[in-house]
């Protein structure tokens, strides 16, 4: 593997699709320095868009008032989604991708939360704690208003616990199936009783009268737990670090599970923090062999394309922004709207006839926005355009069959670019 191919692979996986210029710089700097540089921005909080906290309309509000409140909440969510896509497209490091990873991991949907400010506050938690050790992250997430609303946490009370949050916390967020029993779910639910969300204030608070503070036996330990000691129990559990290593691997490494050695190496590195786990992943001997093994998620496909084509989605006119979001909807992945608490699919589930068709169509949409990239291709000699396209889209090599299709379209740079974006090579990374 050449240094260029190696850093291209690294950047395609750790960031939202590198530009040709970023690959040039990385090739000069070398893989080690590049890795250091992309991991560096992880852990920084950002200035969120200024949105009115809103809250629910008062009891007894009229139908019109309620409808108005719903419309306002939807408009805020669109604003938040565009803001995030804009950041993904303009920030070059690994932070935005890792934030997106955590969003899919603690998959919370605005469909039920119905509040952009709460979704953004959760995202800020991912940014603040997402690169470090998982203890502070889990502690913060158990107080996260959006997550509590999403998994019925505010309905979980001493009188009759609701198990939804406790079960998903262990099954999907920290341990995985098989590392806890039904008694742990019931005990965990009791530990998590009593939290109430104030939508307007954007806070969650423990109400002692709704909380069950009786001792429980949880994951082999008996005593009185609170959210912090529960979180600590989870992150110290022997299944936690390997579980997280596997979850990270299927998004950054390969769609199939990592081997035991890789899992062990990642898990060991992860004790320092998730940034360190990512570093271990990118330097693992198994990583280099994973080129082309991962199917791009639609957000990765679209954001990678706009970055490489030099399009800033946040600066597009309203109707063009709508087009981009429609593309994501057609491909089945809209930020802040995971399909369920299990997050988005991995791998071949994204590859269907309808997604192939959507990539053909939205390849054309994207090309229509990419005047400068099209001009650059037009300025390239016709025989060199297919190769130039590979450089632009950071595709290591076209197969003969794809090269033949592209060569046939080379006379028309727009058509060439649109087909390149839809090609099988560009659907994976």
């Amino acid at each position, binding site marked *: 593997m050449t240094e260029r191919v190696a850093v291209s692979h690294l950047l395609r996986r750790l960031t939202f699709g590198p530009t040709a210029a970023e690959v040039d710089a990385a090739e000069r700097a070398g893989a080690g320095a590049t890795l250091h540089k992309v991991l560096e921005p992880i852990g920084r909080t950002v200035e969120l868009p200024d949105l009115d906290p809103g809250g629910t309309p008062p009891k007894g509000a009229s139908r019109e008032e309620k409808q108005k409140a719903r419309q306002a909440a939807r408009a805020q969510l669109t604003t938040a989604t565009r803001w995030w896509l804009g950041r993904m497209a303009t920030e070059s490091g690994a932070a935005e991708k890792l934030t997106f990873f955590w969003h899919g991991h603690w998959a919370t949907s605005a469909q039920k939360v119905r509040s952009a400010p709460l979704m953004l506050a959760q995202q800020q938690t991912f940014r603040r704690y997402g690169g470090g050790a998982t203890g502070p992250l889990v502690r913060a997430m158990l107080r996260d208003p959006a997550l509590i609303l999403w998994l019925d946490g505010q*309905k979980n009370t001493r009188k009759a616990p609701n198990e939804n949050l406790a079960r998903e916390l262990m099954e999907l967020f920290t341990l995985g199936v098989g590392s806890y029993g039904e008694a742990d779910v019931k005990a965990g639910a009791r530990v998590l009783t009593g939290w109430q969300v104030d939508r307007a204030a954007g806070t969650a608070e423990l109400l002692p009268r709704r909380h069950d503070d009786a001792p429980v036996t949880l994951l082999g330990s008996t005593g009185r737990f609170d959210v912090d000691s529960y979180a600590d129990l989870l992150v110290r559990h022997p299944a936690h670090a390997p579980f997280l290593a596997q979850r990270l691997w299927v998004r950054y490494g390969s769609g199939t599970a990592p081997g035991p050695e890789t899992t062990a190496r990642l898990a060991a590195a992860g004790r320092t923090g998730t940034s360190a786990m990512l570093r271990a992943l990118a330097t693992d001997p198994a990583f280099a062999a994973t080129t082309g093994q991962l199917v791009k998620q639609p957000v990765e496909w679209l954001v990678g394309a706009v970055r490489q084509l030099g399009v800033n989605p946040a600066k597009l006119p309203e109707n063009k922004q709508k087009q981009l979001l429609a593309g994501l909807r057609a491909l089945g992945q809209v930020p802040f709207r995971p399909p369920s608490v299990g997050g988005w699919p991995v791998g*071949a589930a994204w590859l269907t006839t309808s*997604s192939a068709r959507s990539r053909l169509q939205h390849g054309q949409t994207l090309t229509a926005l990419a005047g400068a990239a099209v001009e650059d291709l037009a300025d390239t000699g016709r025989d060199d355009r297919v190769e130039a396209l590979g450089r632009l889209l950071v595709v290591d090599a076209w197969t003969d069959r794809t090269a033949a299709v592209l060569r046939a*379209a080379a006379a028309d740079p727009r058509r060439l670019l649109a087909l390149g974006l839809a090609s*099988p090579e560009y659907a994976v990374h």
Partner: protein
Amino acid sequence: MDTITRRRFLTASGVVGAGALAAGGSAYALRDILATAGDREPGRILVLVTLYGGNDGLNTVIPYTDPAYAAARPGLAYDDGQVLALEDGVGLNPGLKGLHKLYGDQRLAVVRGVGYPKPDRSHFRSMDIWQTAAPERPGTTGWLGRWLDTAGGDPRLAISFEPVLPPLLAGATSAGATVPGGALTLPKGVTKPVLDGFGTAAAGESPAQARAAGCFADLVRVQGLMTDVAAEAEEDDAEGQATATGGQAPPLDQQLALVARCVEAGAATRVYSVSLGGFDLHADEKTAQEALLTKLDKPLAAFVERMAGTKAGRDVVVAVYSEFGRRVKANASDGTDHGTASNVLLLGAGIKGGLYGEAPSLTDLDDGDLRHTVDFRDVYAMLLADVLGADPERILDGWRGRLTFS
């Protein structure tokens, strides 16, 4: 969790993995299925309805005369004035009016207490168990996929109208077909040579990239759908439902309408998989479940009546199941948490209406949950033998139990 969709199960289960993909589990056009008209082997047809999210069995087939029922579920229980009475002190949810009528005609069989040993309360794991029919260790093949392996492996024998293959249709050497109902018109300027070119296999490419290429070859097959026999179905298809990854199945009435068309056209297909999601109601369950059950009842009852009216339709058997029922006791949010045994509903050819299986006790519980009285593999064995004419032991890892109608 608000909406459980089948995509989530695909994500977690990993069942549709190497086997199904290697076997080329892929999208077919409706006309590919209709083109098999007249090829059907004599025998019955199975329509399997999966309810994703864990439907509350106790509020579906309701033991309203059992005092333990109302006691366990204040605020959530139905009383004798509300249920659609069957017999023996049980009644159907008020949302199931069509099925109630079919029961009155002795055409609906309710199998009670269906489950498996050591029940798992994870949606994913339990759905894997139901779809693979392997409770001890969910494998990588679905029970109907294994049937397909033994039936010759033609994907058109077992189909789903959802964009992604459900795990139950993935065999070891073959896989059922997905037949998206919606139109797949091509963007301007995208020509057949482009699709043929991208759809050509290339030496040495990764499996993922090969699959991406394969989708273009599949797209070629789907061409002409707009102007062809499927025009009617496409007009039915709501724009908003078209996601690429199977997150959202088309509405149940659309899926069943496509099944009806294929059956009436005499398609070779023996197994149809359809689904309805959203049953994971941890809070404010009563009205939401009733509305969902109505969404099941209306299209299903209409489908059963439509099938009864045609010769081919009279070969159809429908089975309805979910990955688990819910806890006997309501939670404080007027919902229920994940439970265990529940009902399987059966309708159609050779199904004698009535109540089957022993209703689980509401007081002799296993850690707050119902104890199952019928193993779900008994139901599968009956469907395999009586509907598909197959040897259940071969497909169900030597399982010998079988539900009988007596």
